[in-house]
Structure formats: structure tokens, C-alpha cells
């Protein structure tokens, strides 16, 4: 049985963790969410038709992220906008690097930080679409949003990122 569980984890854990990592911005939170999603996947995943599994999994991981955010808000009074965002502190590579790589690393850090500033629905759509390559239909099904709303959120999210990054994007 544990072998089957390990195969299930190997198939899905990176994708779940990636979404949680970019959605939440904190590695430890992403690990907690991933653990929660793996438990739910083991308990209920067998009942989900194979073709519906990606959307179902997207729903579960996004809801798990939201649950964690609610718990965090009740635990913390104030979230620092400068010190609380781990990617801004860790994503920039140390030491001298070629200019292009430095720019890419800085851009990545800025994007990760900018994602945390988006409204949650836009953030979820941007990560699912641009980072994880899900289709509009899958995102619509996963988040329970009309198709046009998904497109609107995506475009607004990317436009907001462009605005947040400002002069940081060369």
C-alpha cells in the first residue's frame, strides 16, 4: 500500500508543491499545503475520473491554500510587506553572474513577490495558466469561474504584475 502511495505522490507532489509555492510565497506553508493535498488525494482521488483529476486537484490545492491563509490571518495581526516575502530574500543569486542571468534572477524574484500582491483569484489564475499550463476550461472547472472571467482575471493579473514591477522589468 505504501508503494502505491509513493507512486501517487511521485506523480503529483511537485505540481502541487509548485502551485502552493508560488501562490503562498512561503516554502514552509507550501509544504503544509502539499501534505494536506496528498492526504486528500489518497483518500478521495480514486473516486475521481482520470480526465477530471487535474481540475479536481487544482481545486483541492487552491482551497487548501486558502484554508491556510485564513488560519495565518487569524494568527498574525500584520504581515510585513518587505520582510515576510521569502522569495525576495532568497531568489536573487549570490555572487557575480552574467548580466542576463542576474536580470532573469531579479525578474524571477520580482515576479514571485509581485504574485503575492495580486488578489487571490487573479493569483490563482495566473499561476495555473502561466506557470502550470492549464487550459482555460480546466481553470474554469477548477475554480468554479465562467470562462470569460478566467480570461479577465488572467489579463488583469498580468497587467497588474506589469504595473507592480514597473521599472524593475527592463
Amino acid at each position: 500500500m505504501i508503494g502505491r502511495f509513493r507512486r501517487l505522490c511521485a506523480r503529483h507532489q511537485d505540481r502541487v508543491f509548485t502551485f502552493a509555492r508560488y501562490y503562498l510565497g512561503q516554502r514552509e506553508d507550501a509544504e503544509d499545503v502539499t501534505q494536506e493535498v496528498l492526504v486528500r488525494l489518497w483518500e478521495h482521488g480514486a473516486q475521481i475520473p482520470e480526465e477530471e483529476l487535474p481540475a479536481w486537484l487544482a481545486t483541492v490545492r487552491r482551497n487548501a491554500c486558502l484554508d491556510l491563509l485564513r488560519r495565518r490571518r487569524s494568527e498574525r495581526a500584520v504581515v510585513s510587506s518587505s520582510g515576510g516575502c521569502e522569495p525576495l530574500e532568497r531568489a536573487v543569486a549570490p555572487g557575480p553572474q552574467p548580466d542576463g542571468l542576474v536580470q532573469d534572477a531579479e525578474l524571477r524574484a520580482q515576479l514571485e513577490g509581485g504574485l503575492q500582491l495580486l488578489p487571490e483569484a487573479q493569483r490563482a489564475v495566473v499561476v495555473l495558466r502561466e506557470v502550470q499550463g492549464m487550459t482555460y476550461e480546466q481553470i474554469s472547472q477548477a475554480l468554479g469561474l465562467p470562462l470569460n472571467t478566467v480570461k479577465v482575471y488572467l489579463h488583469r493579473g498580468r497587467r497588474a504584475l506589469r504595473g507592480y514591477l514597473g521599472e524593475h522589468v527592463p
Partner: protein
Amino acid sequence: MSDEGAICCAWAQERLEPYLDGELPAAEASALQTHLHSCSACATELQRAERVLAGLRALPVCACPPHVAAAAWARLQALGSHQRRQRARDWLDGWLVPHWRVAGAATVGLVLVLAAGYQHTRAAARAREVARAQAQVEWTLAYVGELGRRTGLTVREQVVRPHVVAPVQRAAAAAGQRRSL
């Protein structure tokens, strides 16, 4: 910038994202391209939008640490034992407690049935022993009778009188003589 130019830039920048995705209607895409050719600010903004889009799509897949799956498995194991205990408690709370009269009566009935069965078993055992002993006596008497018939001897005259009765009579007579002395 004139109002007409400002409106055009605002209109254009709202459509940069769907334009990048190829979702703009042909007429609007053509108008946007015409505007971009003449507006350096919007052209720069388009480049920025392209850079953001490319950056998002280049964000790497994050490898999940191995301990996460191990922790999930441990939690499932704990949940499994907890659920078994909870199901037992739910059964007690959901059925046994509300129906305690029924359960109690069923328990008492079961005890009575077991006790009756035990008594029946003991009585049956005694009856079997008596029947066995009776059968042995009857067989013995039949054997002795058959033996006497075949040999011409009678048990009373050739066996009981000389070997049982006579010794008892002699012992009694000896005892009487000793008392008279």
C-alpha cells in the same frame, strides 16, 4: 498628449494582454498594431508585457521535499487508527446507547440460552452414563446366563453359594462362638 491620443493609449494598453494571447478580434488587433507603430510608450509597454509573460512561463517547477510525502503517509496512518476508534465509538453512540433496552434484553436472553444449553448438556451426559451402566449390567447378566446354560452350571449354586454365601456364614459362626466363650 491630446485626449484622443490618451484614449488611444488607454485603449491600447487594456488590450495588450489579450493581444499577446492572440485573443483580440482581427479588427482590434489591426488597430492596436497601427497604434503601436506610432506610440513608443505603448510599444515599450508591450515589450514589458512580453517580458512579464515570458518570466512567468519560465518560473521553474519546484521539487517537493521528500519528507512531505512521508509526513502525509504518517498522518494517514494516524488517521486510520483514529477513524477505526471513532467508528467504534460512533457505533456505540449511534446504536447501542439509544437501543440499550434492546441490547440488554438480547444480552440476558443470550445468557439464558447458554445456561439452558449447559444444563441440557449435563443432564444428557448423566442420562448417557446411566444408560451405559444399565446396558453393561444387562450384558453381564446375559453372559452369565448363557454361560450357565451352556455349561450346565448355575451361577447361584456353583458360584455365589460356595464363593460368596458360604464364606460369609462361616465367618458369622466363628464370631458367635468367640462371643459365647
